[in-house]
């Protein structure tokens, strides 16, 4: 039964016109990005580093030291790393004492303790793995993806392109998912559909899965095009890459992993917004509201809440997992991966549960 429902929903939600328009827009964006990326990267890099070639201080004493940093290429010897570890440990104690005195026990925007822990963790990782005297691409939570002092490479462009296209994919997902139920009610087809021996929960599940399939296809389609364009236009520069994740875990990754992390983080955001659009459509039976709410209203409300410091408890910030992979210019105020994970599950799960319950019980007018 579910298979038949799912197959039908996949076909019903396929809107060739929308797909063609979205694909054309995505392609134009990619081409424009490819054309201007190199010069924009140079410009931003110069602006942020004053032409020194060193961005905002992953190592204490370098750059502005405010924690807002870019991807950097490190190449340090053992002596430097040992000295900096000692210095970081000292500074971390000072900063933690300051924070305790200020009464904060959670992360806040540009939290110096947070960044110092991250710096220390990075340095310790290098020491423990003896990664001396070699090029290391370092990303931090405060990194603008792709704006690299090492110059534009296929991977940096690809990550940037994906980050740029994600909003377009979110809109596509919102249209596909947000229309799934409202279209049935607008056309009146829901009555004949429910006259079949199908359960309402199975129908809702099939619609949701079909919408997620569509948006996944759109997302990975964009990914394939972005990768192809990246490697066609920009040279490949290989460097081992260090990622900090919520100031804790660090992994050494190659270019493919860098792309993979960017892809996974943005994919979570896409799935969350698609699910929300679906749930709102099912609950309100209103297509316009379903499409607009997640894309615009949540973003607007999220921006307001972010300013008040409550952003981490709202879905627009919580679903922005890219920030934890260093794909945002700054970390959102007070952002913490585990809070974000909890909020993402809470909002998305709550909205979808409500959708299933309401569709399962509510009369078809």
């Amino acid at each position, binding site marked *: 039964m579910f*298979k*038949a429902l799912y197959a*039908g929903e996949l076909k019903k939600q396929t809107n060739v016109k929308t797909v063609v328009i979205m694909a054309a827009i995505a392609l134009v964006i990619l081409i424009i990005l490819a054309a201007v990326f190199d010069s924009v990267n140079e410009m931003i890099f110069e602006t942020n580093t004053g032409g020194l070639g060193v961005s905002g201080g992953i190592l204490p004493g370098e750059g502005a030291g405010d924690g807002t940093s870019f991807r950097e290429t490190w190449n340090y010897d053992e002596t430097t790393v040992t000295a900096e570890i000692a210095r970081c440990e000292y500074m971390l104690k000072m900063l933690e004492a300051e924070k305790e005195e200020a009464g904060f026990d959670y992360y806040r925007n540009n939290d110096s303790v947070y960044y110092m822990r991250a710096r220390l963790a990075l340095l310790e990782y290098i020491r423990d793995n003896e990664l001396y005297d070699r090029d290391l691409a370092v990303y931090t939570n405060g990194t603008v993806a792709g704006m690299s002092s090492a110059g534009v490479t296929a991977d940096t462009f690809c990550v940037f392109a994906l980050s740029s296209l994600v909003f377009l994919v979110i809109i596509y997902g919102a249209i596909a998912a947000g229309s799934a139920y409202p279209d049935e009610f607008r056309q009146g*087809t829901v009555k*004949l559909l*429910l*006259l*079949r*021996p*199908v359960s309402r929960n199975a129908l809702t599940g099939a619609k949701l899965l079909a919408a997620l399939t569509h948006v996944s296809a759109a997302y990975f389609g964009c990914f394939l095009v972005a990768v192809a364009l990246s490697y066609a236009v920009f040279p490949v520069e290989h460097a081992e890459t260090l990622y900090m994740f919520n100031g804790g875990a660090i992994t050494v990754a190659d270019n493919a992993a860098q792309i993979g992390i960017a892809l996974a983080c943005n994919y979570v955001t896409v799935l969350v917004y698609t699910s929300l659009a679906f749930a709102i459509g099912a609950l309100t039976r209103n297509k316009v509201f379903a499409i607009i709410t997640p894309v615009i209203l949540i973003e607007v409300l999220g921006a307001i809440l972010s300013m008040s410091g409550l952003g981490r408890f709202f879905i627009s910030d919580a679903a922005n997992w890219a920030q934890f992979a260093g794909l945002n210019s700054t970390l959102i105020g007070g952002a913490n991966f585990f809070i974000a994970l909890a909020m993402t599950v809470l909002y998305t799960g709550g909205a979808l549960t409500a959708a299933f319950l309401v569709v399962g019980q509510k009369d078809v007018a």
Partner: protein
Amino acid sequence: MSEVLKVVNLTKEYATFRGLGRTAPLRAVDNISFAVNSGEVVGFLGPNGAGKSTTIKMITGLAAPTSGEVYIDGHDVVKERYAAMKCVGGVIESPDMYPDRTALWNLKYYASLQFAGDKTKDKKYIADRIDGVLSLVGLKGRENHKIRTYSMGMKQRLGIAQALIEIPKLLVLDEPANGLDPDGIKEIRDLLRTLAGEYGVGVLVSSHQLAEMQLMCDRCLIINRGRIIEDRKIAELNVDAKGNVSIIVKTDRPEEAAAFVKEKFAAKAEACEGEVRVRSELKASDLTRELVLAGFNVYGVSEEEVRLEDLFMHAVHGGGEE
């Protein structure tokens, strides 16, 4: 004949609000009970807002009853939805299908849901069924046209076609004659009679076209203000609840004849324009014989034709609830 539909004490209430407060619920359907047998075509009549659509939606599981039960072929619509819906075909309110898809696509889609999990129904069987129902409703050759190009009449036919992809035990139709020309209406009528007569399908059909319903149905239910106020066999429209029939006798002395009938049979009788109108349990032949024996010249005798429309008007507007 077995009961394919059994409605037991069915009630539907809607919450109503005034301002922020909740007021007394609106009772759209009020404790109704009735049944439809296999092979029977039952008309479901009522003025707008009487509770027809709400009842039909509860029967087909589109709306949840506040209380009461609906059984389709013995299966509770709420508790055994799958088994109950497997026995139902129908068109509710309007035959809306996916407008940007072809008729064939729509039928294939509905068939895939209807026969899902049934391994005995292979692709050939489904294709044959679709071909069969398209021929049955006269849409063969138009199956590859998009629904948005269809006229209302064609949509009605296609709506009936989708309901018959698997011959149902209960067919529920809401205004099936809407948008059909006279030929189309007759075809639908003949189709429903065939389905009931040859396949034993129980049909519940709702319509405002009372003359057509009189021709189409075996029985009619009239609902008003949420209550069933008439349940009458069409063949017995002439007979009222007390078993009385109206007989019209043409005679040379109507006033005297009326007085004779009142006195002899204690029946209602009134004279007008050369006729006597008698309302009683008497048979027309018995009444004629008594009048002739009493010396009246009788020129003609007929039973008054009671139209469904008369019954409906009387029931809805003339104290049918009492």
